[in-house]
């Protein structure tokens, strides 16, 4: 399954400055693994030492926050948009 991944500013050093890249995978975990193949080092920025999403990283598959879905096991349908976003406070 091919998806489009939106890369936040602080990770664009790994994508040559590109804000969007293509990746393959049927789940978010597979998509991140594929990102790592093509953009070495990016997975360690998104995942912690246990391989879980870092707590200040928000990831959306289309419009859904994966924390409300199945986390890294969230399915990524063909053509889906995946957004990686640093958590920010506000109000």
């Amino acid at each position: 399954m091919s998806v489009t991944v939106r890369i936040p500013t602080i990770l664009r050093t790994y994508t040559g400055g590109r804000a969007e890249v293509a990746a393959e995978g049927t789940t978010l975990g597979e998509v991140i693994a594929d990102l790592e193949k093509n953009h070495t080092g990016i997975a360690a920025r998104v995942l912690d030492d246990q391989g879980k999403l870092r707590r200040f990283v928000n990831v959306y598959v289309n419009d859904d926050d994966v924390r409300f879905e199945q986390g890294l096991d969230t399915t990524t349908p063909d053509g889906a948009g995946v957004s990686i976003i640093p958590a920010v406070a506000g109000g």
Partner: protein
Amino acid sequence: MRKMRRKGLASMAVQTVATTSESTVDLGPAAALSCRECGHRVPLGPVFACEECFGPLEIAYDFSGYDTEELRRRIEAGPANIWRYAPLLPVPADVAGKPNINPGWTKLVQADNLARELGVTGGLYVKDDSGNPTHSFKDRVVAQALEAARAFGFTTLSCSSTGNLAGAVGAAAARAGFRSCVFIPHDLEQGKIVMAAVYGGELVGIEGNYDDVNRFCSELIGDPAGEGWGFVNVNLRPYYAEGSKTLAYEICEQLGWRLPDQIVVPIASGSQLTKIDKGLQELIKLGLVEDRPYKIFGAQAEGCSPVSTAFKAGHDVVRPQKPNTIAKSLAIGNPADGPYVLDIARRTGGAVEDVTDEEVVDAIKLLARTEGIFAETAGGVTVGVTRKLLEAGVLDPAKTTVVLNTGDGLKTLDAVAGTGLTATIRPTLDSFREAGLA
């Protein structure tokens, strides 16, 4: 020259922290940005997330060389607004002379009537931030962000907002001559929409909740369309958040340079509570108050209670929720500073609790009829949680307690819509007596 500088800094915002050149901005004692998670330091700039671990960046200060008594005298001789604390904030020394909304130095109301009602004997105070220029505590943080925006050469101020912030940004931008374009959930209370729109900036309703708005702004900031924009609570967030420290400074100074024993703070993102703790710690380290224990309590509405749920479950991570509460200014289902709130509540011996919307409304009325303070729903949440924690024996009634009211009830009139006329009578004395009003 100025245009070139602005473009350069804006480009920095959409590239990476690693490419940031050494900062030359004058933001007083602010020395650098430091990651709260891993400690990675970067120069001052319009960035908010650590490139190493995504953790939040916050201001690291250089307070060396301050003499405690001279600092105290300087503060006490300062203006009756937050700039009296300029030596402790990321602002230039001449900040008081710049066009800004100059918030703060709001009343610390000794709430004896409320204390009697709740059985508090150790002294109960309401820090009433409805007295700020746009009637909420948000003026404090926006005033800080405006100074950072000015230092970094931005000319457009923006934010994602649950309403109060939108108004504060609109007002500050108007005063300082900035363009403003702010984003809110489309279904906010009408009062907040009007209070944000009246300042003449652009106000955009997003079809979604606050977390959706926040996500949108985070994506906009990384896009060329958002280049050159200062988002007060995104790329200016490290500076913005420091404004909440002034609540801690003022409370202590107004208590006679004394720490309160207990503080009850509302939780939306959790930023305010963490910065109040930071402010108290700074006052202790600088010798401006005696170093003794204090407890910080967090307050949420049951319909958006991710932090209190985690606290009560003993968790150190916060599971996001979909908000459903009348306390819309606190309706952040995915609170970025939630884990830090848990740490602080546990470290200080405090707690995090939540109340139902019905209890929020009751508390708004309680504060109004006992102290003459009309709080917005967030104030109802703190007063309601204070009552609940006193009844549960978690708050000590014999200790000095400060409760925050962060906004004006005129902004959330719908919450108390059932409140109205006692009677309708003819303009005659007979009618007055018949109605039982004599």
